């Protein structure tokens, strides 16, 4: 049985270590596993529960166990001092004191023996125990004696059986003992908790073990099938009498409560039960007892206790000795409480300093600030707390990225700011996740760090404190060890959460800001793409219309043109011939417009070859002058012949585009000269061709629609207005862009920009 018990106990202990509260069911099972009372006690209980029991059988039963008989008789004699000195046999005792008293004496002896037996087997005496078993029994016997004495007063004599009061008093804290036997370690912890927090044992047991002592006691009493009155005393003692349920043995419960309170006030308790002397007065009044009578009982108590303890086989030490021991014990408890208070005060000071530091940090931190501002704040906070003149921060915005090493003076001045690859054998700051504040030398980081920021001295005793936020480590603080009187490392670690949260907030804010910007950019691109799409759709529609028109219109135009040509050959009158010629010209112009529209809409096929831009420009200028009939000077400004001798374009198409632009410039109102400027941007190797005139420039409306087909700012009917639209098509087919604006001085300025203009197959020429 004891083996089984110890096994179960260990299983409960393991539950206890796993969770702060034990499950009540498990504990109750544990209690149920306690050994039952001896067969004699069980039999006595069985026999006395029946009204028709035979006293002879009980007497005979007790008689079979001589040692039990002796203890019972001794106990009986103690209770009936003076008039029962001649009680020598059990049947005599029954005769003298009544069957009830003998039965209670048997139970007292049996319960005491059983629990003593289990308790002795389960305890290792060398361990200092807050729960003192011996003191517990002394307390129990004292309560039992007090209860018996109270029951013997004239006010209560008729209502309460003295021996029952003794038994109830003896067993009233059965639960405490039961927990001590089944769960010694958790009970010790509960005792310590009760002592340090100045709370009652019931509260401490509920908090630490998950079940209070009265419930445990009641359960064990039921398990042992003790009489209902005893069970109820165990369960309900200590409560105010007014609050007790209307039970036949309410007075018994109140008597035990009063006895318990009396003993607590003047005697020694095994542990502080939290039940104070203030209960004594109301209980006394409720029971109708006078104070002198109670005082008298108390005075007689030590002697009675000694006698009963002897009778139960437990030696009670001398009062003075007992007092000294109690004093020593109290002193030890006081010392423990003092230590606890000192460490609590110390902790509170540190915590107050931590909170003050967090407050200061939050005062200086500005919401929505940059990452650098957040890091600066952290660094100054670190300097302030450690007393250092400067500190440093390792920052890695995302795993896999490079590390930023920043150093700050204690006034927030940025001393160093380097971006570098992680040190050898390191990759991400999250590697430090499992570590707390560690010396840099232990991490082999000092030399690397010093090399990253040579102007910031890093002492050998500097430490690294990772800033964790959730599962991420975004940054780590590098600091000198805290100075005397400054915050200690555990507090720095606690603060590191605040710093980490601030850095994380700054990073997230930064990310959100960047996302916002990207979104705006994406919106702009989307809008441009939508415009492009709309233009492409419009072009496609124009293309379809033009293709149909070309077929349907060119045949009639051919007839008109051909007939007018034939007509012209037959006319002798030159003016009439001219008219016919004009008809021919008009039909051809109309046809060209249709063709131009169609070409504008259909996909452009480029035949890129190596071409000389200078030559293309010559061709374009010649064509443009011929096409528009203007004889203005065209000035060329080229970087060098060689630089543009090999551009990779569809030469014919590109020359056409240039022709259109130059022609447009030549025809500009008020223009006296056209300038063609070619540049290569050294930054991005972009080829820029600008065609500028010095005319009056374009209106806003003309600028907005310059590239629309058929749009012309010139007097109506002069030109089909397809030139710039066509030039745009050609340039865009080359992957370039074309823009038009009014130049700052005078005239319009058309700019072509080409990124892919170098021949990929040939070596790049350097200007």
């Amino acid at each position, binding site marked *: 049985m004891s083996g089984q018990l110890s096994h179960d106990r260990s299983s409960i202990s393991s539950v206890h270590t796993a969770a702060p509260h034990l499950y009540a069911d498990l504990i109750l099972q544990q209690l149920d596993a306690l050994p039952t009372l001896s067969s004699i006690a069980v039999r006595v209980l069985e026999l006395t529960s029946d009204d028709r029991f035979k006293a002879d059988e009980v007497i005979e039963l007790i008689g079979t166990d001589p040692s039990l008989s002796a203890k019972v008789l001794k106990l009986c004699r103690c209770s009936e001092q003076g008039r029962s000195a001649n009680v020598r046999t059990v049947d005599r005792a029954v005769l003298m004191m009544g069957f009830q008293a003998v039965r209670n004496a048997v139970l007292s002896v049996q319960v005491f023996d059983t629990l003593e037996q289990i308790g002795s087997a389960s305890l290792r005496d060398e361990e200092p125990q807050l729960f003192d078993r011996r003191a517990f029994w002394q307390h129990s016997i004292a309560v039992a004696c007090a209860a018996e004495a109270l029951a013997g007063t004239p006010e209560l004599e008729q209502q309460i059986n003295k021996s029952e009061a003794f038994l109830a008093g003896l067993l009233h804290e059965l639960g405490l003992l039961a927990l001590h036997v089944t769960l010694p370690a958790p009970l010790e912890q509960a005792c310590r908790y009760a002592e340090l927090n100045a709370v009652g044992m019931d509260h401490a047991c509920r908090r630490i073990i998950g079940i209070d002592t009265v419930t445990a006691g009641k359960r064990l009493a039921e398990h042992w099938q003790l009489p209902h009155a005893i069970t109820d005393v165990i369960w309900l003692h200590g409560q105010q009498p007014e609050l007790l349920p209307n039970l036949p043995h309410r007075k018994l419960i109140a008597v035990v409560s009063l006895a318990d309170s009396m003993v607590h006030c003047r005697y020694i308790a095994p542990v502080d039960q939290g039940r104070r002397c203030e209960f004594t007065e109301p209980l006394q009044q409720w029971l109708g007892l006078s104070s002198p009578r109670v005082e008298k009982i108390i005075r007689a108590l030590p002697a009675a206790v000694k006698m009963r303890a002897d009778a139960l086989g437990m030696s009670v030490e001398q009062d003075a000795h007992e007092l000294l021991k109690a004093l020593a014990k109290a002193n030890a408890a006081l010392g423990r409480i003092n230590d606890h208070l000192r460490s609590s005060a110390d902790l509170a000071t540190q915590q107050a300093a931590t909170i003050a530091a967090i407050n200061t940090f939050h005062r200086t931190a500005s919401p929505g600030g940059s990452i650098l501002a957040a890091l600066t704040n952290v660094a100054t906070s670190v300097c302030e707390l450690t007393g250092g003149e400067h500190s440093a921060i390792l920052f890695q915005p995302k795993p896999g990225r490079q590390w930023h090493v920043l150093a700050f003076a204690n006034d927030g001045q940025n001393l160093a700011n380097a971006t570098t690859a992680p040190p050898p054998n390191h990759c991400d700051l999250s590697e430090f996740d499992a570590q707390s504040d560690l010396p840099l030398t232990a991490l082999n980081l000092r030399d690397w760090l010093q090399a990253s920021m040579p102007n910031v001295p890093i002492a050998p005793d500097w430490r690294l404190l990772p800033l964790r936020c959730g599962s991420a480590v975004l940054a780590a603080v590098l600091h000198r060890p805290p100075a005397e009187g400054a915050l200690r490392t555990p507090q720095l670690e606690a603060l590191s959460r605040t710093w980490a949260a601030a850095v994380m907030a700054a990073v997230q804010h930064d990310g959100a800001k960047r996302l916002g910007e990207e979104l705006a950019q994406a919106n702009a691109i989307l809008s441009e793409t939508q415009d492009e799409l709309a233009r492409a759709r419009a072009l496609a529609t124009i293309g379809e219309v033009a*293709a149909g028109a*070309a*077929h349907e*219109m*060119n*045949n009639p*135009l*051919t*007839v*008109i*043109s*051909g*007939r007018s*040509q*034939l007509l012209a050959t037959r006319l002798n009158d030159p003016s009439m011939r001219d008219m016919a010629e004009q008809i*021919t010209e008009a*039909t*051809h112009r109309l*046809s060209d417009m249709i*063709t131009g529209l*169609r*070409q504008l809409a*259909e996909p452009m*096929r480029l035949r890129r070859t190596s071409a000389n831009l200078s030559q293309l420009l010559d061709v374009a200028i010649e064509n443009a002058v011929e096409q528009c009939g203007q004889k203005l000077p065209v000035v060329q400004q080229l970087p060098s012949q060689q630089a543009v001798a090999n551009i990779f374009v569809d030469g014919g198409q590109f020359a056409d585009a240039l022709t259109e632009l130059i022609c447009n410039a030549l025809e500009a109102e008020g223009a006296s000269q056209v300038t063609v400027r070619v540049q290569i941007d050294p930054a991005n190797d972009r080829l820029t061709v600008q065609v500028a005139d010095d005319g009056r420039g374009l209106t806003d409306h003309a600028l907005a629609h310059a590239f629309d087909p058929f749009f012309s700012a010139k007097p109506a009917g002069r030109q089909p207005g397809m030139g710039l639209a066509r030039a745009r098509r050609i340039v865009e087919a080359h992957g370039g862009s074309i823009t038009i604006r009014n130049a700052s001085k005078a005239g319009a300025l058309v700019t072509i920009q080409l990124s892919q203009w170098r021949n990929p197959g040939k070596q790049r020429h350097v200007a």
Partner: protein
Amino acid sequence: MGKNNGQKSWAEKQVFTTGEAAEVCKVSQQTIIRCFDSGRLQGFRVPGSRFRRIPRNELIRFMRANEIPSDVLEASDIKRVLIVDDDPEIIELLQDAIGKDERFEVKTASTGYDAGLLTESFKPHIVLLDYMLPDINGNVVCERIRANHALADARIIIVSGVVNQNEIDELTRRGADDFIKKPFRIDQLIERMTNLLNV
């Protein structure tokens, strides 16, 4: 129709006697007969008689194979022009414009099918071919003409209002010699034709 100018024209002669063949080739009749009998010059005999007859194509082949100048067969200055277009007004216009020129003999067709038939019989020197025809497109007609050896020397000018550069390239690949866009200047069209025909 073209003019004979009083000279004997072999231009429209489809079947030759051995005497005519000897005259065309400027050899004796006996030589022709020998070549005929030996199979070097293919032909047929008139049913019910022993008269030898030589088809024009075979005679041209023979002359070329033996490096005998064949221009005498095509000695006429008049160039046969086939106009193919589905628009009757265009056909009429071109007939008026080209047919009036004495250097050209003109026939017309309004579908690809008719054009195919006419090329066989008319043997045009040049075809003015509209690209968009009601039955088959100009590129197919172009290909058929090129597939016919008898028409190996025929020139083709595509005339169309809707042809893009890709299609022009495709037509050139299939044998077109030139492209001219509608509407056109008549003098330019004729200049292109004469250039192609070396007239």
